[in-house]
């Protein structure tokens, strides 16, 4: 039988497997591709820098990472990373990434995007990818505004935010991404902000190590269209950066939901983390049980058995 994609063990992830020939980790120079097109001062620069740092620190190789994004300012991300990547259509990065994750257990799949991509046009996919617990890391750079199209209301814009589509101030209640993720069944839900690089890296590492759908909301300021939005979370701007209390039980869904309900700036850290079998593992299990019934048969012989019943 031909070597099949899903037959490989789901846990065969490159970073944990010792390389056959000793390859050095990549340098930042080797990971960086195009110079980012973001505005000077954009929070997304920091997320990109920390992604590079993650790749460096965890000694991941170019060919074992896949960077996927939808459409938006932050979704330009894959162009700036020297690795296999895809810049997909608006809102649909998650199902695209799921196709990769479910057929290639050997790859690390990272998805980057903005709040519009994740919670507006892609809202349905967010819920379903989370509930199916498809293994990948999804980092949403939330800036509370549509930046690429130049300042329209986003699904996370707070009430009263004056945009070009709500000139008198936003009237629609915003989505709470953390509540959304917990309610949808995500198995790893964390919150961070671009102004605290060490914390971003810590969350990225924890998300990457999680076996399942790991979601990070990273506040990422749009200096052009929503300047100062997150000042209250930045100690350098007189705000407070509160970490999730040490006493918080990350497996307690209700406690996580309570944390998510705190008024801005709220807490930062891992709100929720549970271990549940991934869809990847469940599909692999189905494959295993079906293949045990056709052991030793070539693909054409399996098909022949079906055809024999159709004579």
């Amino acid at each position: 039988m031909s070597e099949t994609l899903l037959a490989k063990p789901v846990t065969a992830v490159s970073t944990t497997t010792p390389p056959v020939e000793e390859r050095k980790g990549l340098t930042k120079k080797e990971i960086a591709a195009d110079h980012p097109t973001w505005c000077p001062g954009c929070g997304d620069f920091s997320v990109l820098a920390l992604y590079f740092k993650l790749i460096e620190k965890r000694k991941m190789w170019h060919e074992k990472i896949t960077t996927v994004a939808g459409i938006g300012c932050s979704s330009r991300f894959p162009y700036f990373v020297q690795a296999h990547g895809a810049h997909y259509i608006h809102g649909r990065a998650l199902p695209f990434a799921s196709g990769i994750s479910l057929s290639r257990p050997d790859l690390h799949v990272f998805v980057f995007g903005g709040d519009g991509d994740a919670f507006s046009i892609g809202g349905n996919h967010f819920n379903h990818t989370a509930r199916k617990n498809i293994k990948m890391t999804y980092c949403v750079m939330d800036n509370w505004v549509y930046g690429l199209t130049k300042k329209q209301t986003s699904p996370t814009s707070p009430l009263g935010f004056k945009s070009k589509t709500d000139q008198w101030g936003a009237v629609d209640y915003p989505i709470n991404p953390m509540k959304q993720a917990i309610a949808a069944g995500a198995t790893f839900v964390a919150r961070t902000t671009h102004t605290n690089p060490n914390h971003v890296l810590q969350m990225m590492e924890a998300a990457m190590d999680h076996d399942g759908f790991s979601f990070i909301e990273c506040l990422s300021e749009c200096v052009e269209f929503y300047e100062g939005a997150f000042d209250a979370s930045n100690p350098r701007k007189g705000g407070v950066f509160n970490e999730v209390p040490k006493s918080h039980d990350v497996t307690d869904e209700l406690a996580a939901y309570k944390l998510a309900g705190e008024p801005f700036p709220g807490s930062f850290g891992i709100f929720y983390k549970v271990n549940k079998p991934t869809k990847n593992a469940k599909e692999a299990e189905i494959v295993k049980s079906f293949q045990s019934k056709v052991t030793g048969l070539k693909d054409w012989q399996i098909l022949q058995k079906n055809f024999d019943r159709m004579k």
Partner: protein
Amino acid sequence: MSNATAGASSPSGTQKISSISEVVIRIAGNSQDGIQAIGGFLARLAGRSEQEVMTFMTIPATISGGASIFQVRMGSGEVLSSGDEADVLLCFYQHSYDAHISSLKKGGIVMYDSDHVQPNPELEKTYHHVGIPISSLTVEAIGGTAKDKGKNIYSLGLIAKTFDLDLPKLEKLIGERFTGKDPSILNNALAAFHAGYSHSLGNLIETFKFTDAQKKDGTQIVMNGNEALGYGLIAAGVRFGAGYPITPWSDIMELLRRELPKYGGTFIQTEDEIAAISMAIGGSYAGRVSVTGSSGPGISLKTEALGWAIMAEMPLVIVDVQRGGPSTGMPTNIEQSDLNIAVNGGHGDAPRVVIAPANVEDCFYMAIEAVNIAKKYSVPVILLTDQGIATRIEAFVQPNLEKVCQDISPDFTPIADHKPYDLSTPNGVSLHVPPGTKINSGKYPIVTGLEHDELGHPTGSPKLHMQMTAKRRKKLQALGATLPVPKIYGPSEGNVLLVGWGSTEGPIKEAVDRARAAGDSVSSIHIKHINPLPNGLENIFSGFNHVFVVEMNDEGLYGFGQFGAILRARYCDPKIQGLNKTDGLTWKVKEILERAKTNLTTGIRKL
């Protein structure tokens, strides 16, 4: 019922046995009566007896209940269509009788359940009426509780007796069907079958015997178009796909979901149509041609992602099992009205490949062709079938699976350098290199929906947009240059050429046969490569005075159906005319001939 003295009652009162070469049986009842099962048994029996068979069915869009028919045409000679008129009508209810008696050939036999049907005395002269209390005899045979459940199998017994069908083969088929279930179910089924078979037809009716079938070159297998297509994809090496349920596409996704794990693959049911195509594209991106599919509105939903796959040059197979549209349209009826969206759907200049199987056997082989074109040209391929071919059962010679099955596992061998959108290739084809492949130059590809340079990085350069647009087009032109000239059915010169595509091949060929037998000069071609078109069509058209494009879609604002309009635009030939219909039913042979004649006698449309 050719070669037969159909419907002639025997005045002497002794039972008469007539020899026939083929028969069309229509079974009319409700969808829960299991009439598809009778049809399925007959079709499978025909396949095992080296006979030709073709079926046609309608199912209501309701979950339970609703009128339904199954028509099966089987015979010793070549069977091209499911038949215009029935030789035998079996009806379970008054509404079945009332609605379908007109589909019966004059002098044909109507067998009805006299527990439910009151025949129309005026029609008793036109059709040979045979009333049998099917419901009560079934209850008598297998007990009161089974009631409606067994009457399909009882009726199968009646049909088997009437046509002297092979009893041991049918018993074996029944055994296979009910295998593994509670043995009492099989016993009941066989009891009902034997009761039907041994019901005394007395002197009511003649019985029939098929002439010997021609020997076939190899074992026949029997399946419907959706099954053939699903198994074709598996043979092609497809191991990943995603879909969302919609009629009549769902059968294919159910089959792939059920079968792929045996081959180490999987098929994912997604939250919506857009996720389905996106996940399939993700699967292709990961290295192995993947599949998605849909029908009707689902295809509309997929078009943005299709455009991405064209722009990003990703291989992909999209199955479109057409149904009546637009919008929710007629979910369980047949129409060929998705040709425009298949060829042109979406924004921008977006060339993609469209191929259309003409019969059930084609569904198997063209699924493989679709995968190979997608892979070779790194392009999405739309496999355009329709409700008629999806549910139609046919027998065909079993493929040599050892030869046909292929391995399309991705290759992750490290490469020196890679440009995902290399402009230097003469035919525009550049191949996808999946993640997992180490690229020694350290320059990794981004695949994208933005206009891009050769490495996949965004560009606003007018020159690059022109070059990349041409690249995407040139791939299809290169494919077009390899496509064989379609074979002409009938002489290569004459008065009328019928042009068809998709599931209409059978009735069109039969129309040619019938017209030629009557001395008319008619030939036909059937086009399976819709976009790009095959070579040499202009030479074929030049041999005829009239070219009629036979399609199940609207004649359009300017008098041409969807394919007709493409051919007009491509060949600028005013003799190309449309022959269209939108009743949601398959073409009848006589309809095609009548419509062709009308077109001719009215001097065709004014130009």
